[in-house]
C-alpha cells in the first residue's frame, strides 16, 4: 500500500525570490531511516488509513493540480539570447507539444509530505575522564563520498566527555558544509522568520517562498512543516488558491486542507472557476481519507457519483452548504 522508501531529490536553483529556474536532475537517496508507512496500516473501523504517497491519493492530487502549460513554462529571467524560430509540420508541432507536456509533468512532481522526524538522542560513550579538558565541542563528520546523507556518521564530543550522535540541525549544517547543495544556506535566511513571512504573503509570493523552503530545509524537519503550514493557512484565509494551482505545491496544500477538514474554501473556489470534475475528485479524496465522516457514509449508502457526491458533501459535512448548492445550481443552469 505504501510506496517504497525512496525519495527523488530535484535540485532547485533559486537565487532570489523572483528568479526561480527549475532544473531536474534526479538523485536517488536511500532513506532507510525514514519510513513512509505509519505504525498501523488500518485506521478506525477497519478502513485502510490513507497516506500521502498512496497511488489513489496521488492520482487525485495530480488531477486537481491541473497542467497549465502557460504557467509552468512562464518566462523566467535568464541570460539574453536571440529567439530561436523553428519551422515545423503539424505532426512535429504535436510531438513538441507532447514533449512539453511530459516536461511539465516532471516539473509538477509533488513535494514530499513526510511525518516529522524524531529528535536523535543516542549517546555512544561517556568518558568522564575527559571532563574539563576542552572548552569547545568537537564535531566529527564522515566524508566518505558514497554513503547516502541519511546514513552518514556525524558525531559530537562534548566538553564533559560525552560522545553522542549529532542532532538533526547539527547534521544538516555539517552536511551542508562538506557537501554543499545549491540554493541551501548554512544558517536559514531571515525570510523564514514569522514577521517576514507576513510581508511575503502580502506580496503574493507564496510559490517562490515554498520553493525556497524546499531548497533550504529537509522535508521531514520541523521548520519545513511549519513554513508550509503557515503558508497553506494564509492561502486558505485569503482564498488565494489559484496562486498554487498548476505548481508542485498544490498537492501538498490540498492534502493539508483535507487532513484538517477545511475543504470548503477550495471547493467553492473550484466551483467558481467551473472545475466541477476537480471538485468531485476533491470530495472523493475527502471521503477516502475520512471514511468515518458523515458525507463518506452517506455517499457509500447512496452509491453517489459525480455531482451527487458534491450534494451529499454539501448537505452533511460543509459549513458553507448554501454557497456550494448555489454554485452547483449555477453550473447546472449553464449546462
Amino acid at each position, binding site marked *: 500500500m505504501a510506496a517504497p522508501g525512496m525519495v527523488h531529490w530535484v535540485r532547485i536553483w533559486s537565487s532570489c525570490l523572483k528568479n526561480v529556474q527549475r532544473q531536474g536532475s534526479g538523485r536517488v537517496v536511500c532513506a532507510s531511516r525514514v519510513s513512509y508507512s505509519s505504525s498501523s496500516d488500518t485506521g478506525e473501523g477497519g478502513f485502510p488509513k490513507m497516506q500521502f504517497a498512496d497511488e489513489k491519493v496521488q492520482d487525485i492530487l495530480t488531477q486537481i493540480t491541473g497542467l497549465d502549460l502557460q504557467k509552468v513554462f512562464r518566462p523566467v529571467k535568464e541570460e539574453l539570447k536571440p529567439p530561436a524560430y523553428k519551422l515545423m509540420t503539424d505532426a512535429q508541432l504535436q510531438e513538441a507539444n507532447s514533449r512539453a507536456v511530459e516536461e511539465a509533468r516532471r516539473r509538477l512532481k509533488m513535494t514530499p509530505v513526510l511525518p516529522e522526524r524524531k529528535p536523535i538522542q543516542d549517546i555512544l560513550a561517556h568518558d568522564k575522564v575527559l571532563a574539563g579538558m576542552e572548552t*569547545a*565541542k568537537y564535531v566529527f563528520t*564522515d566524508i566518505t563520498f558514497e554513503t547516502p546523507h541519511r546514513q552518514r556518521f556525524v558525531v559530537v*564530543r562534548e566538553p564533559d566527555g560525552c560522545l553522542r550522535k549529532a542532532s538533526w540541525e547539527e547534521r544538516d549544517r555539517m552536511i551542508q558544509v562538506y557537501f554543499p547543495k545549491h540554493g541551501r544556506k548554512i544558517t536559514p535566511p531571515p525570510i523564514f522568520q514569522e514577521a517576514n513571512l507576513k510581508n511575503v504573503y502580502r506580496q503574493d509570493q507564496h510559490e517562490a517562498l515554498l520553493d525556497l523552503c524546499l531548497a533550504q530545509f529537509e522535508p521531514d524537519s520541523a521548520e519545513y512543516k511549519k513554513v508550509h503550514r503557515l503558508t497553506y493557512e494564509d492561502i486558505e484565509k485569503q482564498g488565494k488558491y489559484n496562486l498554487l494551482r498548476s505548481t508542485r505545491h498544490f498537492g501538498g496544500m490540498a492534502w493539508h486542507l483535507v487532513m484538517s477538514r477545511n475543504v470548503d474554501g477550495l471547493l467553492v473556489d473550484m466551483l467558481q472557476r467551473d472545475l466541477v470534475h476537480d471538485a468531485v475528485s476533491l470530495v472523493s479524496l475527502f471521503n477516502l481519507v475520512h471514511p468515518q465522516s458523515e458525507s463518506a457514509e452517506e455517499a457509500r449508502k447512496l452509491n453517489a457519483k459525480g455531482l451527487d457526491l458534491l450534494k451529499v458533501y454539501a448537505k452533511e459535512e460543509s459549513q458553507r452548504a448554501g454557497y456550494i448548492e448555489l454554485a452547483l445550481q449555477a453550473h447546472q443552469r449553464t449546462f
Partner: protein
Amino acid sequence: MKASALLKRYHGGFVVIRLALGGCTNRPFYRIVAAFNKRARDSKYIEQLGTYDPLPNKYNEKLVSLNYGRIKYWIGCGAHTTKPVAKLLGLSGFFPLHPMTVTEAERKRKRAELMKAQPDGDRAEEEEQDKKEQEA
C-alpha cells in the same frame, strides 16, 4: 603503494597519516593527509583524508572531517599515525582513547583544583613578581 623505484636515497620509508598546516597568519587550518614520512609537512601528499579546524566557530564547535573508508584503507596498507591524528581519532571514537589525552585531562584537572585551593598563594606570588619588575 611504494615510493618510486628510482628514489635511491629513500629506503625504509613509510606512509603516515598526519596534519598538514595551511591557513593564514593567526588562523591555522589542518588537512589530515596520507603522505610519505620524509616529505615536507605541507608538500605533495598521496591523498587528503579530512580536515581539522582548531578554532571554534560561532556554535563553539571545532569541525573535524574524516574519510573513515580511506583511513581504514591506509591503515590496512600499514600507514602510521602521528600523535595529534591518533588523539583526534580517539576523540571521535574510531580509535580507543589516546593515553596522553587521558593524562592531559587529569593534569589539567589537578592544576585547576590547585588554582582553586590556593587563590591567595597565587596572588601573593603575582604581587612579588610585580614588585621585582618595578625595582628593575
